[in-house]
């Protein structure tokens, strides 16, 4: 029977059928961070259970770490306690941990691929919904809750209901001024935040093939914003080239064996997809969100929509409260909306390509005087180092941006990086939820180029002619 990439990975990891579509699935890689793991370790201890396979687990602190003055004591005692718990738990259970001061430290979803941990065909989990990022390599990667972390610690498996297959095909050349982030937002705008619920999305088509690995990670990262627990791209020569030589990558004869296997990870002709969606990349324009759900997407050249333009009464009600929260009026042109803060970073857009896209927009210009703070937070120490080698840090600093240390930062405001109530943020992160970047903060999701454009102009601009 013709299979999809997801079917193939599922079948290759099925330890036992538990009935009614639930399988006991083997997990090859388990990434952990400080926020969602402490209770899982406590559960193990309480039940007097062992960690089954320490070598399959790797830890890195990212959510709570400050992005400046890291050598000073953490300003938040609770954050410090969580970071200390990660240290002691990893030591007690024999887990390799990348330290906060290690150059490899960074956002867990940036670190994994950089270290070659993320590979085609593997099952990879982490207690974070943006684990879907790793699907860019043709891995089955998804976020799990803390009970599942504990389950995976104790058994190296998870009990999972098999998801359905969905294919999103994007064809055509992406227009100038648009990047993978715009593709992700365009897809979510089209299918909605529940459009992929219950499915694994396979991204296919010429646009996806043309994306770099960084671009594919941006796209797969936001699968969860479309409701899909996992998103993936079939691996190709670009994938293999990215992995080759990295720390965890297969070496020597094993490399050839691995590539041989990885090449089989393509959806067969005639494989069945429960849902199919297609987009024409040539019609994509620079996008920005106007509301408090990632599906609230509009062209930067568009106007803030009126609640009555939505058919569904519950969507109308949601739009009314979103506009109120966001401080926007229906009909207002998006490119006149003024911005107070700018954040370039997060597991969506903090890789070297994002840093280059951001730097290229500056063209000798300065951050607008109305901007309270414009921060650039590289995804890892290695991204930071690479950007500095390329002189990008100087371009940012000369323009008036702050160049920070790696971490999740203002994406979810668990560390000191936050926006104040009523402040409007142009953000390259993935969620514009109420209060996400601080109580009352107003988040607009955009690409790195769009964020930098807004920083310079002080309002949103169409980056195609700015």
């Amino acid at each position, binding site marked *: 029977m013709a299979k999809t990439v997801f079917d193939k990975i599922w079948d290759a990891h099925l330890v036992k059928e538990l009935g009614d579509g639930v399988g006991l699935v083997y997990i090859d890689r388990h990434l952990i961070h400080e926020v969602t793991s402490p209770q899982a370790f406590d559960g193990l201890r309480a039940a007097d*259970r062992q960690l089954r396979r320490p070598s399959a687990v790797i830890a890195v602190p990212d959510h709570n770490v400050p992005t400046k003055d890291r050598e000073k004591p953490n300003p938040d005692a609770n954050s410090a306690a969580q970071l200390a718990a990660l240290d002691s738990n990893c030591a007690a259970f024999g887990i390799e941990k990348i330290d906060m001061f290690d150059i490899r430290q960074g956002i867990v979803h940036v670190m994994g691929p950089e270290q070659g941990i993320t590979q085609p065909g593997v099952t990879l989990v982490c207690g974070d*919904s943006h684990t879907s990022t790793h699907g860019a390599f043709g891995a089955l990667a998804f976020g799990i809750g803390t009970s599942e972390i504990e389950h995976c610690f104790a058994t190296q498996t998870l009990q999972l209901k098999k998801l359905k297959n969905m294919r999103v095909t994007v064809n055509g050349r992406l227009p100038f001024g648009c990047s993978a982030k715009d593709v992700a937002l365009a897809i979510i705008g089209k299918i909605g935040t529940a459009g992929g619920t219950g499915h694994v999305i396979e991204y296919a088509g010429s646009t996806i093939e043309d994306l770099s690995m960084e671009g594919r990670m941006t796209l797969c990262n936001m699968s969860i914003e479309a409701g899909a627990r996992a998103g993936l791209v079939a691996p190709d020569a670009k994938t293999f080239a990215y992995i080759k030589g990295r720390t*965890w990558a297969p070496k020597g004869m094993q490399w050839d064996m691995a590539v041989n296997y990885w090449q089989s990870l393509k959806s067969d002709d005639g494989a069945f997809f429960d849902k199919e969606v297609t987009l024409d990349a040539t019609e994509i324009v620079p996008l920005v969100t106007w509301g408090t759900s990632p599906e609230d997407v509009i062209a930067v050249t568009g106007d803030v929509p009126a609640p009555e333009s939505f058919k569904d009464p519950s969507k109308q009600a*949601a739009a009314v409260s979103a506009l109120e929260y966001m401080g926007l009026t229906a009909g207002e042109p998006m490119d006149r909306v003024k911005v107070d803060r700018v954040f370039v970073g997060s597991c969506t857009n903090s890789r070297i390509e994002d840093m280059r896209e951001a730097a290229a927009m500056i063209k000798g210009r300065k951050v607008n005087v109305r901007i309270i703070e414009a921060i650039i937070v590289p995804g890892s120490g290695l991204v930071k180092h690479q950007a500095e080698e390329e002189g990008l840090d100087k371009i940012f600093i000369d323009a008036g941006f702050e160049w920070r240390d790696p971490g999740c930062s203002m994406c979810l405001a668990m560390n000191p990086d936050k926006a104040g109530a009523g402040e409007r943020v142009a953000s390259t992160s993935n969620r514009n939820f109420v209060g996400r970047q601080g109580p009352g903060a107003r988040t607009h999701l955009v690409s790195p180029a769009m964020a930098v454009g807004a920083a310079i102009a002080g309002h949103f601009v169409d980056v195609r002619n700015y």
Partner: protein
Amino acid sequence: MQKFDQVTSIPTPFTQVNVDTDIIIPAKHLKTITRTGLGVHAFENIRYGADGALTGEAVFDRAPYTEATILVAGENFGCGSSREHAPWAIADMGYRCIIAPSFADIFASNCVKNGILTITLNTEAVRHLALDGEAEAEITVDLPAETVTAADGTVFNFTYNPVHKEMLVGGLDEIGQTLQDEALITAFEIRQKAAQPWLYNRD
């Protein structure tokens, strides 16, 4: 874990769509290293004023909903972050069951592991039950029978994954269940190591 059979309660009607886990429990409360005590912070931005005081106006804090064990929610409930703090917080408020037109996958899976039953019903049925809540009338959820009985006696049937049903009804520990298959897991590892040795280089 507490066994789940029948639950009767006046349900709390809270049918906003796309309620994300940041609304259920804001990120600043994720800095805990225990599973309990999150109920006071649940739906914080809805329940507390700018001065940080409980307003008492949110549906969760009004009688009789303060005693409710069933929550009637809107479409795509629990979307966003995978934080299990969301079901912990909801459980800590006293809820044992959530009824909605649809749930986000990770959230639903986190719920069952914490003894919370998530029931998916069509929009009309959910509206009917929300109206019961508003009328302060009791409804009954029967997991073994897979039914929800509205105040007027209307019975809505639902389907629930049999594996999860067995877990909830029996109050079973999923890890203990899986560990019974430890020999199969070991056999899998031996097979996989032979076929894909590069996945075992660090063992």
